[in-house]
């Protein structure tokens, strides 16, 4: 597993944590959001439009009402002004005691009645009791010959018009007209007399033509006759010209009474074209001179104007624009969001796919992998582990690692790597190779055990051992016969051989020895590798080892004319006499083989610190630096031809190395190519010898 304690557990935790968790489905792209934004925007816009319309409507209505009130106020003002005029006329009449035609005419003209629109007559009438009528008429006829009180009829009192202005229109029928004879006028006259203030009559048909009302004010001088001053008001003229700006946009109707009724219509100012049926309309009261008039004002077409009416549309357009813009932004945001989501989903999918791959790999490796915590409880296991340890229906998670591999818990720590036995669910033991590494996951120590089933490997090894054993046995048996036969022949016990035959037998015997040596080497290597042999260790004198080795090698050395010189400082080693001898002979044998004929091999032995060191020095061709490590491996010789030319299996140095290392020693070579080699090994000195 990863040697990094920071990365690996996180990865593993993620793996174990998410295994089996399906990838999240990608969310659908939220297209409704821009539509929602658009809908909200549109709703707000419509609300805005409505508000704008309402506001506009309120403004228009307010303007309409303001204009209507302007008209009404102007009318009222005008009536008020005429009351004042009448008050002036009364003051004049009182001052005159009884005005005559001339003074009245002068007074009236000084008022410039033409500047007081609507007043068609400003007149003076005087009360006459019935008994006084004839005398009164006679007296009047002195200045106005045609004077007569009319209409005819016998009444208790008469109120004949004596003076009036203007007179230019030639309608003189007013003179002598008994104002009190008309019920419409009489009522107002009576009221004014009673209240001593100006009053307005009902709707009357004016003598001068047209519809109108008459305003009366009683005249009661301290000395002189009682009478009234009156102003006949033609409503058409009264209304015309009032508030000209506002009146231009409004149709004005004037009614007698606060409630408009056709019968009471005083003035109809409705023009052409007629107002729309739903046109703005208001009835405002004018209370003046003890009477209430109603002014009905109706907005003419076009009153509301054009420019202002565009506002709701502007609001609508702006609102829709902003809404659309908002929706577009929302759409863009939603798209970005959707893309981000897609991306996230893809990553999740990729991650999930990756995880699946990892899971597939993890589940399909031949090695069982389990994790366990410090208490030995298994937290996770791959499929191979389930296969190795489980039987159908059993789960490893939650069980103890010790149930699976009966190894002391203390041993199952980081770096554990050894052969052991695994226990299957049915209790059967099987050989495993087990390695344990420790990591940290979510801050907790986590152990990962990798378990390989060693059953097959063990079987193969067993078969190989058997094979080697069998082959060596099978080889040694015929070799026994060959060697035995050759030995008997050479010994002469079977009779003397001719010289050539003896030489041939010697060759055959030498090669059978070589073959035997090769077979023995192979067996040795296998046994060493399998750790199958025991060393018989005991204190051995270096001199004894050297002497035995020299005995063995001397025939070979003599045969090549190689001289062996020794340099010995006595010491005792702790070792197996036979095996160390074997090493020494092997090194000497090599030195002799690779020495030139007639050359010298030097053997040195002596204590060095806690060891005894042996050196075999030759003047041969040496060992190239690149081969110096390799020659101690099995089946290695510096040159392939060495095996044939010099004999030897190529196993000798590998055996030497294994034997020295079994003694706890080291072996090596120092060599200068072309100048020779020094093969050395050092093994521990015997205990009582050690300094």
């Amino acid at each position, binding site marked *: 597993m990863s040697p990094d304690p920071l990365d690996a557990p996180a990865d593993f935790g993620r793996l174990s944590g998410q295994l089996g968790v399906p990838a999240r489905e990608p969310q659908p792209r939220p297209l409704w959001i821009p539509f929602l934004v658009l809908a909200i925007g549109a709703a707000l816009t419509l609300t805005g439009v409505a508000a704008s319309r309402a506001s506009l409507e309120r403004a228009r209505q307010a303007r309409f009402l303001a204009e209507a009130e302007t008209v009404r106020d102007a009318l009222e003002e005008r009536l008020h002004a005429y009351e004042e005029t009448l008050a002036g006329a009364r003051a004049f009449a009182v001052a005159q005691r009884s005005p005559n035609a001339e003074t009245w005419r002068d007074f009236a003209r000084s008022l410039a009645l033409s500047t007081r629109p609507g007043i068609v007559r400003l007149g003076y009438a005087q009360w006459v009791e019935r008994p006084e009528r004839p005398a009164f008429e006679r007296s009047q006829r002195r200045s106005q010959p045609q004077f007569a009180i009319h209409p005819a009829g016998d009444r208790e009192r008469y109120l004949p018009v004596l003076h009036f202005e203007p007179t230019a229109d030639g309608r003189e029928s007013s003179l002598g007209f008994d104002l009190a004879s008309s019920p419409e006028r009489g009522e107002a006259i009576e009221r004014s007399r009673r209240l001593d203030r100006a009053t307005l009559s009902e709707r009357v048909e004016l003598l001068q033509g047209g519809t109108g009302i008459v305003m009366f004010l009683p005249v009661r001088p301290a000395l002189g006759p009682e009478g009234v001053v009156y102003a006949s008001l033609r409503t058409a003229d009264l209304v015309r010209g009032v508030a000209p700006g506002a009146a231009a946009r409004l149709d004005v109707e004037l009614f007698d009474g606060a409630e408009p009724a056709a019968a009471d219509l005083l003035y109809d100012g409705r023009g052409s074209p007629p107002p729309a049926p739903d046109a703005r309309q208001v009835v405002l009261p004018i209370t003046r001179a003890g009477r209430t008039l109603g002014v009905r004002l109706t907005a003419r077409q076009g009153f509301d104007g054009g420019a202002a009416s565009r506002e709701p549309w502007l609001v609508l357009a702006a609102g829709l624009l902003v809404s659309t813009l908002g929706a577009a932004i929302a759409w863009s945001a939603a798209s970005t969001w959707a893309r981000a989501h897609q991306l996230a989903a893809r990553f999740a999918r990729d991650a999930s796919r990756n995880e699946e791959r990892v899971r597939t790999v993890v589940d399909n490796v031949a090695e069982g992998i389990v994790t366990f915590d410090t208490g030995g409880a298994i937290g996770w296991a791959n499929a191979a582990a389930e296969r190795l340890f489980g039987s159908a229906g059993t789960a490893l998670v939650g069980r103890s690692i010790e149930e699976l591999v009966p190894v002391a818990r203390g041993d199952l720590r980081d770096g554990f790597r050894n052969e052991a036995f695994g226990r299957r669910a049915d209790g059967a033991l099987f050989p495993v190779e087990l390695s344990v590494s420790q990591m940290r996951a979510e801050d907790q120590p986590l152990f990962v055990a990798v378990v390989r089933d060693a059953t097959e490997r063990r079987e193969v090894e067993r078969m190989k051992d058997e094979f080697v*054993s069998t082959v060596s*046995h099978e080889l040694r048996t015929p070799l*026994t*016969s060959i060697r*035995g036969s050759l*030995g008997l022949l050479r010994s002469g016990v079977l009779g003397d051989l001719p010289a050539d035959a003896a030489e041939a037998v010697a060759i055959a015997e030498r090669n059978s020895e070589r073959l*035997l040596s090769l077979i*023995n080497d192979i067996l040795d290597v296998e046994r060493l590798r399998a750790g*199958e042999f025991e060393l018989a260790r005991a204190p051995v004198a270096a001199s004894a080892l050297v002497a035995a080795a020299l005995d063995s090698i001397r025939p070979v050395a003599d045969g090549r004319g190689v001289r062996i010189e020794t340099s010995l400082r006595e010491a005792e080693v702790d070792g197996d006499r036979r095996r160390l001898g074997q090493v020494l002979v092997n090194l000497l044998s090599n030195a002799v083989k690779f020495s030139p004929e007639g050359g010298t091999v030097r053997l040195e032995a002596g204590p060095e610190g806690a060891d005894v060191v042996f050196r075999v020095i030759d003047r041969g061709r040496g060992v190239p630096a690149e081969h110096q490590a390799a020659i101690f491996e099995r089946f290695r010789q510096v040159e392939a031809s060495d095996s044939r030319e010099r004999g030897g299996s190529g196993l000798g140095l590998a055996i030497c190395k294994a034997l020295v290392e079994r003694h706890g020693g080291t072996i090596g070579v120092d060599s200068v190519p072309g100048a020779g080699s020094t093969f050395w090994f050092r093994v521990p000195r015997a205990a009582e010898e050690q300094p």
Partner: protein
Amino acid sequence: MKVLVVDDEADIRRIAQLALTRIGGLEVVEARSGAEALAVARAVAPDVVLLDVMMPGMDGPETLQALRADAATAAIPVVFLTAKALETEQQRLLALGAAGVLVKPFDPLKLAAELRAVLERR
């Protein structure tokens, strides 16, 4: 001294017979199998049995046990002759009650001497 050589290989028996008689001056009787060895041992009462380990039928160790089981042959020393060079194998054979173990291939010139040495060590 009479030596019973037991081996299923005729060549080995012949070489051993030559080596022991011509060089060692010993008397040799042969047997081709464990079963035959039992019969011969009973019949001739050899001074030592040189017994091959790997044989078809009754192998060396079985033959040794059979010899020990028979009062007539129980006291005859047995020396194994084996091609198996493993030391553990030799230890095992000695533990069975063998007087000694000699390995194949043997040197015919030294075989008789080695056999004598083994018997003397007892």
